[in-house]
């Protein structure tokens, strides 16, 4: 067998993922177009977002074919961001509450 250099996959897989990304983008645009609200909107937006991100990282960025040591080194640290997200949400709720109290006092 000839010397294989780098990542080699059939062109078809890129075209399929490309098409799929178009479909998912259209779907997330339609969420806004049809004015979905509340939890349904959030569920759809986040689902489409994660699916698109997953496809780009897995296929376009070839993460699917990397060794597990590489995959974990890059993907696991991003989970830490969930902590930052949680802290941000808690802090925002508290700020919103204190602002509410402050502005309410200002009325009297």
């Amino acid at each position, binding site marked *: 067998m000839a010397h294989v250099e780098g990542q080699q996959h059939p062109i078809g897989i*890129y075209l399929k993922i490309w098409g799929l990304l178009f479909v998912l*983008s259209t779907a997330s645009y339609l969420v806004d177009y049809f004015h979905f609200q509340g939890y349904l909107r959030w569920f759809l*937006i986040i689902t489409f977002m994660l699916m698109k991100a997953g496809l780009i990282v897995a*296929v376009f960025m070839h993460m699917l074919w990397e060794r597990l040591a590489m995959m974990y080194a890059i993907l696991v640290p991003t989970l830490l961001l969930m902590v930052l997200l949680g802290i941000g949400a808690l802090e925002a709720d508290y700020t919103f509450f204190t602002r509410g109290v402050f502005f309410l006092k200002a009325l009297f």
Partner: protein
Amino acid sequence: MTQAVPTSAVESPQLPEGLQGIVSDWSSDQRAFKNVPWGKAMMWIFLLSDTFIFSSFLISYMTVRMSTTDPWPNPSEVFALTLWGKKIPLILIAIMTFILISSSGTMAMAVNFGYRKQRVKTFVLLLITAALGATFVGMQAFEWTKLIVDEGIRPWGNPLGAAQFGAAFFMITGFHGTHVSIGVIFLIIVAIKVIRGDLDHERPGFLTGRKGKYEIVEIMGLYWHFVDLVWVFIFAVFYLW
């Protein structure tokens, strides 16, 4: 500086897979990332750090938006365009999204043709990618102009609602647009290297003196796909929220 440093990946015939593979890769007392050129591993680590930067922006935006008592301007209306006498919500951003995804598609194909050593096809696809990227930045410039001039949105306030809208918008899309602009320059440099045959003839690069190889197209591709990836998150949390 004339001597080229080898950049090829380690080729070991049998590497263990799964969790055992992780342990053996990391404890092998040489390089942890097997089968990838070091440049690619370094690009991934850079992208990981960039992920943290963009996440900090997006999480700060979330915090600021959740804590404001003023109503947040509705992005669906702010970014609407009147086309053919009809007001279409968020259409500009939708078109920008499709352009960036298409550029990712052409980039992925450029990487593929690069590894097949099809010089001209790789060059053309890289140029199409750069052109789509430049179009994206152009549309962003249009969007900024519209917001600044027509709608009076400033980083410190705006007539539509919460004052934090402008700061978050200009910071996040500005940083992303900078990434796209740098990517376009980077793409043109790689395209020139490809068409000149620098990679086929393994000529040393002007900056590092390392041998030219088609893996630099893939490394460029990683950066470009990352820019697209960040846009996926910005599109979802900034424009669709």
